[in-house]
């Protein structure tokens, strides 16, 4: 996707002197294109509901990449992690990675991945 950006933060004397405030934002047109892409991915996700008797494995293999793609698109574009100071990305990815790691350990300890779990 081509990127139209607008630079903000350098105009007025009242602007804070922060590097973080000098980043570029996508234009409104790009925000709308990103939203259309997100809506299309969501429509694909919802489409799996209408499949007849899909296996859980098929749903996981199909839906997880779509979910991760939506997550990354919102973080990158709407939350400006693509453009903003890398420190913000590091802080957020640290928290996210910690959560994923801790709860994978928890699920493993509770034998969640075993084929007979919950039955």
């Amino acid at each position, binding site marked *: 996707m081509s990127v139209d950006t607008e630079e903000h933060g350098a105009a007025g004397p009242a602007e804070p002197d*922060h590097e973080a405030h000098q980043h570029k934002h*996508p234009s409104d047109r790009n*925000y709308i294109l990103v939203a259309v892409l997100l*809506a299309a991915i969501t429509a694909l996700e919802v489409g799996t509901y209408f499949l007849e008797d899909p296996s859980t494995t098929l749903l996981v293999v199909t839906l997880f990449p779509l979910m991760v793609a939506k997550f990354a698109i919102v973080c990158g*574009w709407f939350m400006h992690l693509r453009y903003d*100071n890398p420190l913000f990305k590091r802080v957020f990815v640290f928290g996210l990675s*910690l959560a994923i790691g801790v*709860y994978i350990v928890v*699920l493993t300890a509770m034998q969640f991945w075993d084929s007979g779990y*919950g039955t």
Partner: protein
Amino acid sequence: MTDAAFATHDVDPALHDKGVPSHGTSTGVSNEKLAMWVFLGSDCLLFGGLISTYLLLRHRSVAGPGPQDVFDIPFTSVSSFVLLFSSLTMALAVGAIHRGDERRSRTFLLTTALLGSTFIAGQVYEFTSFVKEGLGYTTNIFGSAFYTLTGFHGVHVSVGIILLLSLFVTSVRGNLGPERAESVEIFGLYWHFVDIVWILIFTVVYLIP
């Protein structure tokens, strides 16, 4: 703190009154924005715990309705689109305030609040219909885990709506000009985070049986 440190972090009182940090920070980035990212990183742990708990407990019920008995995927899909669209209007509000277009920013802030309210109304309707179908908070362990997870998310959205309305009122009073754009941007981060949490919940809770 030493005198030298005070000198380094000197603040222009006129700007400080507007909530604008006119001083440099030791990290080179806005402290308020960094604090929001730290909060969002820590909130990942909260929702990670709630989602993991739901995954562990959802098929452990011995009585009462289960996920497949109560979920209305088409209805929840519409709610998901509504929340997704609210992220777009929030991003447009941030873009508008950075350009100095206060009127447009105000309109998008209010639209975002209305879309968030629509989402919450949908959640209230969903919870009510589940209760009518026999799934209360204490009916079974699936109900407890489901209501706790989606309820926490709903509280986050509700807090966001209150903050959106306060930003809207601040803007109407003329106190939310381009010099306060960072406040809108920081709130936008919170709103988008609520959206990405729903992206996870919609897939893991609703779409994967």
